[in-house]
């Protein structure tokens, strides 16, 4: 990639999971029979009129606030005019120069490094229906017929447009994942890529390193996983660089990502910019969102992944651990919070809740909220391990006991006889016995064969019935042999 800098912007479409559509009362949902969730409004029958779904406006406001956007006190719906069979009115109600949300950002963690990606705008619009071409392999050309399903027509759609701040395929993926987790956290969408309820398109260009002007932009579509998004962007960057390095020029176009072939292909070439003849939709009044109302939405906004990550790092976690914990299920995160509050060491608690505890709960199919594990017991368990009172492997057994309802971690460790001997006096006695029983090992150590200590520690562990703290035993053996 030497000499070239990729410039990437991402457009995201999020289908909101409101109970009804954006401008009518039809139910929003997946998987019903075709054309069963339709009415005069979303079918654009003559005389029908749109009425704005207030919940969708609350939700896009929450999304905007989560993305650090300014919320427009007054915003306007426009008609975006184009003819397409799956667009019932042959115009889409969308927003143009006055979107609900503008000028925000998303902080993204890329391999432990935080990158800030600007958000230009987030606006409200409606989804289209779906076309299915019958005959000749489902392609539009040569199809015998096109079937239309309008269940999706009019579903609330939020379009989030990033600034061209993304510089690599990895950043593009991290941005998409972070954005998806914000949407999921807000609970406003299924946010499932494979279902199309969250869709990512990438605008990719490259320019000579240090250049100010942007290169020719190519829009890449049809990525249905984060991996394919990263691959598609990566492919497109390489393709553009190859063309330019070979002295060629790029065409402004839309390219389709072919997952199987692992390449992008020309979908349609833009001849100038499309003229959508935007104008204010006279059927809808401007949206007036006063500060007090926006404030009330802000109060309902949950803590978002980036904020959580920062809080965890402030607790003392390593960035990697903070990222893992921030992405964990809510119940697991709550367990961390209450364990730390109960005095548990943050790093150990984080490792345990995201590792062994999550695994055990899954294995046993226990709902975290319904388990006998609480912050107090997690703190106690982790402290037992950190203090050397139970070994790491014994701790798993303690956890199993706690989950089985046998009592607190200490009580389980005692009743199952899992406490380590970490009393130096008691271990010293065993060490003396072992050294006396293994004179040749002692001799080998003294002649410089240090690794024999491992054998001696093993002997101490056996002698103690596995309960001696191995670290302490190691220390005492060395001290005795040196002394």
């Amino acid at each position, binding site marked *: 990639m030497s000499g070239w800098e990729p410039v990437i912007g991402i457009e995201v479409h999020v289908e909101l999971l409101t109970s009804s559509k954006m401008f009518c009362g039809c139910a929003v949902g997946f998987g019903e029979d075709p054309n069963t969730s339709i009415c005069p409004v979303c079918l654009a029958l*003559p005389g029908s*009129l749109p*009425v704005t779904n207030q919940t969708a406006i609350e939700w896009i406001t929450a999304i905007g606030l989560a993305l650090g956007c300014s919320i427009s006190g007054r915003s306007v719906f426009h008609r975006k005019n184009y003819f397409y069979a799956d667009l*019932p009115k042959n*115009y889409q109600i969308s927003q143009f120069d006055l979107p609900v949300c503008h000028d925000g950002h998303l902080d993204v963690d890329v391999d432990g490094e935080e990158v800030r990606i600007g958000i230009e705008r987030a606006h409200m619009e409606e989804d289209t229906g779906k076309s299915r071409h019958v005959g000749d392999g489902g392609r539009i050309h040569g199809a015998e017929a096109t079937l239309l399903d309008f269940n999706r027509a009019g579903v609330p759609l939020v379009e989030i447009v990033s600034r061209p701040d993304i510089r690599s395929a990895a950043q593009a993926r991290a941005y998409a994942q972070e954005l998806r987790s914000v949407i999921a956290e807000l609970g406003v969408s299924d946010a499932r890529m494979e279902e199309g309820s969250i869709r990512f398109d990438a605008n990719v260009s490259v320019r000579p390193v240090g250049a100010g002007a942007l290169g020719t932009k190519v829009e890449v579509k049809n990525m249905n996983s984060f991996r394919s998004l990263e691959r598609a962007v990566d492919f497109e960057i390489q393709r553009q660089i190859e063309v330019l390095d070979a002295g060629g020029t790029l065409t402004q176009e839309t390219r389709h990502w072919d997952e199987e072939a692992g390449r992008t292909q020309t979908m349609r070439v833009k001849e100038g910019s499309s003229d959508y003849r935007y104008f204010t939709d006279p059927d809808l009044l401007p949206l007036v969102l006063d500060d007090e109302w926006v404030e009330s939405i802000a109060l309902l906004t949950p803590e978002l992944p980036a904020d959580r990550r920062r809080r965890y790092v402030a607790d003392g976690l390593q960035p990697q651990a903070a990222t893992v914990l921030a992405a964990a299920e809510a119940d697991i995160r709550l367990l961390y919070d209450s364990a730390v509050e109960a005095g548990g060491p943050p790093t150990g608690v984080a490792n345990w809740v995201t590792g062994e505890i999550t695994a055990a709960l899954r294995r046993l199919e226990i709902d975290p909220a319904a388990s006998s594990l609480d912050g107090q017991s997690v703190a106690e368990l982790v402290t037992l391990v950190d203090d050397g009172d139970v070994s790491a492997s014994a701790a798993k057994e303690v956890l199993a006991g706690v989950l089985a309802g046998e009592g607190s971690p200490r009580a389980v460790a005692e009743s199952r006889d899992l406490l380590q001997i970490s009393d130096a006096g008691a271990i010293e006695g065993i060490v003396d016995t072992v050294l006396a029983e293994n004179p040749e090992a002692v001799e080998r150590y003294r002649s410089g064969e240090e690794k024999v200590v491992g054998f001696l520690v093993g002997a101490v562990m056996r002698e103690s019935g596995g309960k001696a703290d191995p670290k302490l035993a190691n220390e005492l053996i060395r001290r005795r042999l040196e002394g």
Partner: protein
Amino acid sequence: MTSPDLTIAEAGRRLQSGELEAVSLAEAVLNRASLTEADLHCYLTLDREGALAAAAASDERRRRGESRGPLDGIPVALKDNMCTRGTETTAGSQILSGWVSPYDAHVVELLRTAGAVIMGKTNLDEFAMGSSTENSAYGPTRNPWDPEMVPGGSSGGSAAAVAVGSALGSFGSDTGGSIRQPASLCGVVGLKPTYGRVSRYGLIAFASSLDQIGPMARTVEDAAILLEGVWGYDPRDSTSLDVDYPDLRVTMNRGIEGLRVGVLGELGGEGYEDPVESAVADTVEALASAGAEVVDISVPTAEVALSAYYLIAPAEASANLARYDGVRYGARSGGDTTEEMMARTRAAGFGPEVIRRILLGTYALSAGYYDAFYGQAQRVRTRLLAELEDAYRKVDVLVSPTSPTVAFELGERTADPLAMYLSDVCTVPSNLSGHPAISVPVGVDERGLPIGFQVMAPALGEEMMFAVAAEVERLAGFSATPARSQTA
């Protein structure tokens, strides 16, 4: 007096007292229609069965003492751009030929609930685009006062039906004058309420920011009865007004003593027929004698309102009519691709005036032209509104002719769209401002063709507008009826 010529108020009294039955009233109106339809063609759909069934149900309710009020049993007609379940709704277009709406427009729901007897659907210029009803895909309507003349438009069928007695009252829609101008040309009362007073839900859109449904009737009182039957807040129309709706019949007779009447100077002069100007001047003088204070008012932007209107309305129409593509309903022409099917459907389904306006509107909104056309027209609209609001600080109502001319001959203006567009010059300002305006017949010209007088009022000023209209009606004493209904 034969019953089809009764006023709604009088018919209501007789129905209530039992001296008249809704079924016999409906039969009389249907009889009048059967005598006049061949000549006039007011209706696209005349729903005999539906009307008689509704009338019978009304009589049955009255016998049980369950009358639903002043519209129960009253035969009314609806412009064919209001969706009605069970009968065709075509908007006067080939593209909706045979289309039956699965739902009732808000006004239709209200009328059915009020017990009104819906006679059928009246003729109109295709998609309400026109001023003569000659743009109907189903042939023109003729003026009951002289069948060589147009009834005006686009609600020509609704106006002519009321004038001739094939309905006691009717409803039209007014985007640039489409109720008031045909009311004027047919010698009936017609009004456009404040934008947002009557729900547009189920009204086939022409230009959404301008369209308003309103009544047409033989008297101002009847117009009030009809309006009160259909106005009110409707959450299904986002532009519907959640405000107080006054009791017009109580307030309309309060008189005009001390009322300030502004004569809008820009609406007169060249292009205005002498009989029209003198009838309007006589009416203004009569108002002054009756105690009104008459003031000359200038609203300079009214001069260019028509130009702004003919950019804004087509622009909105170009999007509103995009849905007629043959995909989901209505007529469809074949094609090898979806695009070709859509293009052929639209080329075959729309008439020349509709196509002209779609092209005008598409052009006005196009990149590079938007600011000079649509954008500029919006600025004119804003300025006109400001000037009118300023005028209403000086006067209570503004008055003018409703139309610069009386009814003109069929075919006279069809070859010259601009001449046709000038028919709306007096009515368009109230659409752009969203204000209410009413046309009241005040006389006839030397050929016996009716002349309408327009009273305009500020937003939500219907009470005052009706009070002035009632006084104009009383002062003018207009009682002529068209020759057609006398012979029929």
